[in-house]
C-alpha cells in the first residue's frame, strides 16, 4: 500500500476532471448562444463555431497535465512514486490547472457567448470578438505552465 501513488493519481484525476468540467460548461454556455445565432443566420456557422470552441482548451490542458503526471509516476511510464511526500507534491502541482481550468473554462464560456453576440450583430468584428475569450484563456495558460513546470521538476 503506497499512499504517495494514490495522491499522484488523485492529482492527475483532479486536473483532468475539474478542467474538463470547466470546459464542458464553458463550451455548453457558448454553444447555446451559437445555436441561437445559427437559427437566424446559418451563414455564421463557422465563425460562431470557432468562438464556441475557445473555452474547450482548458479540458485539453487538464488532459495534458494529467497525462504528463501519469507518464512520470509509473502508470504510463516513468518511475513509481515510493513515498507519500512525493505523491502530495504531484497532487499540489496538478492543482493550479485543476482549479483555474474549472473557473476560467466557465468564464471563458460566458465571454464567448457574449462575443457570439457581437458576431451576430456585426460579422466584420469577428477578429475583435475573438480576443475577449482569449483574454480569459491567458490565466488557464499560466496555470498550465506552472503545473507543467512543477511536475517536470519534481
Amino acid at each position, binding site marked *: 500500500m503506497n499512499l504517495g501513488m494514490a495522491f499522484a493519481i488523485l492529482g492527475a484525476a483532479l486536473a483532468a476532471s475539474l478542467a474538463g468540467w470547466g470546459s464542458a460548461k464553458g463550451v455548453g454556455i457558448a454553444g447555446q448562444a451559437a445555436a441561437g445565432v445559427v437559427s437566424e443566420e446559418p451563414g455564421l456557422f463557422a465563425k460562431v463555431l*470557432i468562438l464556441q*470552441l*475557445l473555452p*474547450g*482548451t482548458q479540458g*485539453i*490542458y487538464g*488532459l*495534458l497535465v494529467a*497525462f*504528463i503526471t501519469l507518464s512520470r509516476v509509473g502508470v*504510463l511510464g516513468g518511475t513509481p512514486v515510493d513515498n507519500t511526500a512525493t505523491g502530495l507534491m504531484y497532487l499540489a502541482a496538478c492543482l493550479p490547472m485543476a482549479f483555474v481550468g474549472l473557473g476560467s473554462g466557465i468564464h471563458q464560456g460566458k465571454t464567448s457567448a457574449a462575443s457570439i453576440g457581437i458576431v451576430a450583430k456585426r460579422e*466584420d*468584428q*469577428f*477578429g*475583435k470578438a*475573438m*480576443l475577449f475569450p*482569449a*483574454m480569459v*484563456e*491567458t490565466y488557464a*495558460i*499560466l496555470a*498550465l*505552465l506552472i503545473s*507543467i*513546470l512543477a511536475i*517536470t*521538476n519534481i
Partner: protein
Amino acid sequence: MALAKMKKISVCARKRNRSKILDALQRMGVMEIETKLEEDFQLEKTDTTEARASFLKQAVVLDNALKVLDRYAPEKKGLLSGLDGGDELTQEQFNNMKSDKTAACEDAATVIKLEKEIDELKAAITRDEVRKEMLGPWLGLDLPMNFSGTKTTSVFIGTLPGAWDRAAVLSAIAAHAAKAAGEADGAAEAGAEPFPAEVEILHNANDATYVDVVCLKKDTEAVQAALRANGFARPSQIEPGIPAHTAEKIEADIQARELKITETEDKIAAYAGRREYFKVLSDYYNTKAEKYRMIADIPHTENAIFFEGWVPAKQVPAVEKVLTEQFGAVVDIEEPLPDDEVPTLLKNNKISASVESVLESYGLPKQGKVDPTFIMSIFYIIFFGMMLSDAGYGIVMVIGCGLALLKHPGMATGTKKMLQLFFWCGLSTTFWGFMYGSFFGDLIQVVAETFFGWTGGTILKPLWFEPLVQPMKLLTYCMLFGLIHLLTGLAIKGVEMLKEKDFVGFFAEVFSWFLLVIGLVLMLVPTDLFASISGQTYSIPDGLAMAAKIMAGLGALIILFMSGRSNKNWALRIALGLYDIYGITSWLSDVLSYSRLLALGLATGVIASVINMMASMVSGGILGPVIFIIIILVGHTLNIAINLLGAYVHTNRLQFVEFFGKFYEGGGRPFTAFKRISKHTQIKEDN
C-alpha cells in the same frame, strides 16, 4: 511595408460624357469618389432614385431566380468549390450576355412565377390534407354530412363526447324520452320497449364518438332533446357530398397537384442553362445601380460635372490619361493636405500581404502612420509556428493550403489571403516541428518500436532541443522573443514620433523605456534567481553590468521627470512620473504572456504523443495495424483542428494586445473604390 500613397484628384468634365466617364472609372476600379463640394456654386444634382430602384429591383429578381434554380436544379459542386470567388469571363462573353438581358430578365421573372405556383400548389395540398383528415371519422357514413332526413324520418349526424356504443346511445335516448313522457303522463315504464330509432357508430376517437341517428319524424324533438342532453354536437365543418366520395375526390386533387408540382419543377430546371446569365446580369444591374447612385451624387451645371476623389499614386497616370484623352476632362492632381482624411490602402509584398486581413480585423492604420504589416507578418509566422510546432501538421497545412490555392485561382481575395497566411504559417510550423523533433508527435518512434521492434533510441532527433525535457530553457527563449517583439513595437512608436518631429516625446516615452527595460534585463540575467529559473548561468563583464545599472537608472529618471511634462505643477509631474514607472509591471505581464508560446507548443506535442500511445496500445493482432491507422488519422485530425484554432487565436492576441498595445492606434478609413460589383462573376479586362 507601407501604405499606398494617395493623390487627390479633382475632375471637371462635360456633362454629356458623364455616363461614359463613370463607366470607365467603374471598370478601372481605382478611384474613391468624393462628392462633398462647396455649396456656394450654382450646382444641381440629378435625381436618379427611380432608375436606381428599377435596376436594384431587377437585380433582386435575378438573385431570387438564382436561389430558386439552386433549390430545384442545384449546380454540381465540389467540396471546395465554395472557395471559388466567381466565374471569370471575357469582355466579349459579357457583352454577348448583356445583349440578351431583356429575355434573361423575363426568364428570371418566369422562374420566380413558377416557384410561386409551386408554393401555391403546396399550400392547396396542405389545405386538402386538412380536409381529408377531418373527413376521416366520417368515411363510414353513406349520407351527406348535412343530411337532415327524408319525408318520414329525421337524421342526426354528429359527435357525442366520450365513448359510446350503439346500445348505450339507444338506451340513453329511450331513458330520456321515457323521462320526458313520464313527466307528462305520470306513469310509464322506462325501457319497457325499445325506442324506435336506429343508431350507427361511425367512429370511436379518444374523446368523442361519431354517430348518426335515424328516427321517425314524429320523434324528432324527443330524440333531439335526448341527444342534446348527452352533449351531441353537429360537425363543425360540413363537406358536401357523401364523405367517402369527397375523400376520394380530394385524394385525386392532391395527386393531380403533386403531378403539377413535379411538372413545374421540371420547367424550372429547364432554365438551369440560364444560370450564368442570371449571375452576370445580377452583377450588371447592381453595378448600374451603383453608377446611378454616383450620378445622383455628382453635382453638375448645365454642361459640366465636378467631382473629386482619391487615387493610389501608382494609378494616377492611367486615370488621368483616360479622363483627359478620352473625354477631354480637366484633371487636377494634388498631394493630400495635412487635415484631409485620406483613405487607407495597404501595400505589401506577397508574404506580408497575407497578414493584412489580420490587421484589417483590428483596424487599419491612418494615413501617415506606420503600416505594421511587414514587421507583424514576420513575428506572426514565427509565433504561429512555435505554437503549433509539429513538422507533420505543418506539412499537412502547406499541402492543404497549397493545393487549394492552386486549384481555385479565382477565389475571393479574403479567403485567398487567409489560405496564403496558413501556407506560410505551415512552413514555419514545419520548421519549428523539426527544431523540437516533433513529427505527428513521436509517430516515427512509435511506429518503429511497435511494428519493427526498434530499440535503438530516438530516431528523429530535435535540431534544437525537446521542449518537454527542458521546458524552462524554452520558457526563457519565449520571453526573449517576447521582449524583442515588444521592443520592436516600442521602436515603431519611436519612428512615428520622429516622423512627426516630436523629439522630446521620443526621448521621454521611447528612449527612456529602452534604457530602463534593457538595463533591467541586463541586471537580471547574471543573478542567481535567473540562473535557477533558466537552468543556465550567464556572466556578463563588470563593465556591462555597471552600464546596465546606469542605463536602468537613467531611464527611470527620465521617465520620472519627463513623462508628466505637460503639467506645470512639479509635484504632480513627479507623481505622474512615478505612476509611469509603475508601468514596468505591465511590461512584466506582457513578457510573461509570451509563455503561451511554450504552453501551446507543449500542448500540441503532448496530445500528439497521447494519440500515438493510445494507437500503439491496440496495435496487436491482425487487425492491429488497421485500428492503429484509424486512431492515428482521427486523433491527429482532431489535434490539428483544435491546435490550429488555438495557435491562430493566440498569435492574434499576441499581436493585438501585446504588440499593438505598444504603439498601434488604428482608426484608418479603408479605401473603397468606385468599381464594378462582382458578387457572382469577375470580368477579365481586355487590356
